[in-house]
């Protein structure tokens, strides 16, 4: 047989071939893997939710802390009204 003819035969060797069949247990395995995958995914979701709650709580704590500190400073400032409005410290000595 000539080389060209032989190559043509090889290239056409899949003609009339039947389709390979998927293993019988493949779908059962797919179902099982989906079931096994679920709790793992739910765990990740809860970790995400917990992380968001933690971030909200921390930023609230920071804001509250900042708020009370500002009030305290304001109160301290009110204790020295003269010092703030009048910069003459030793007026009696003149």
């Amino acid at each position: 047989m000539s080389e060209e003819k032989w190559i043509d035969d090889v290239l056409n060797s899949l003609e009339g071939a039947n389709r390979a069949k998927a293993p019988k247990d493949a779908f059962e395995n797919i179902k099982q893997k989906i079931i096994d995958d679920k709790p793992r995914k739910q765990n990740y979701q809860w970790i995400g939710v917990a992380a968001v709650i933690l971030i909200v709580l921390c930023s609230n704590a920071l804001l509250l802390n900042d708020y009370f500190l500002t009030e305290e400073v304001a109160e301290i400032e009110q204790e020295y009204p003269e010092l703030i409005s009048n910069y003459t410290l030793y007026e009696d000595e003149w």
Partner: protein
Amino acid sequence: MIDENQCIRSIALGDQDALKELYQHFGDRIFNTILSYLKNEDDASEVLQDVFITVFNTAEKFKFNSSVSTWIYRIAVNKSLDFIRSKNAKKRQGVFTSIYKRDSGEILHDAPDFEHPGVTLENKENAKLLFQAIEALSDNQQTAFILTQVEGLPQNEVAEIMGLTRKSVESLLQRAKANLRVELKKYYPERGK
């Protein structure tokens, strides 16, 4: 005939019966395609499962811009090529680790001669050589050849799966055939006689 789009909508809501229906419709076709790439039934079965798990997990993101068949084939082709790449990477690691199985001493990664289960008896030897030669093609040429010649899909559907024009697929197919001819010359039984 199943309503593929309706199937995907139901799968997106977590309906496993719809997934089974889709699997019964596409399972063998997708397995046949994956097997043509991987040439190993166990590996092909593993990737087939992975394809349908991906379909189940990503159905809600499917935009219906292409047909369901195109989408599933695209997933299968990508997963098959990824599997081959990771297998080849493991082979390269063989420089540093043993490439032999501990118990039997057989080579871990080398696939034995692949015989496609659907090929007729008189074509078995030739088909074995053809699958061997296909390995020498580039990823794109392999995909064009497998989807059109092994799977029998029309060129326009293959173009959609590969994200190319029909002309590009036609040219890839021509180059694939030309390269296969060159590769097959090495296997010609009367070579050198």
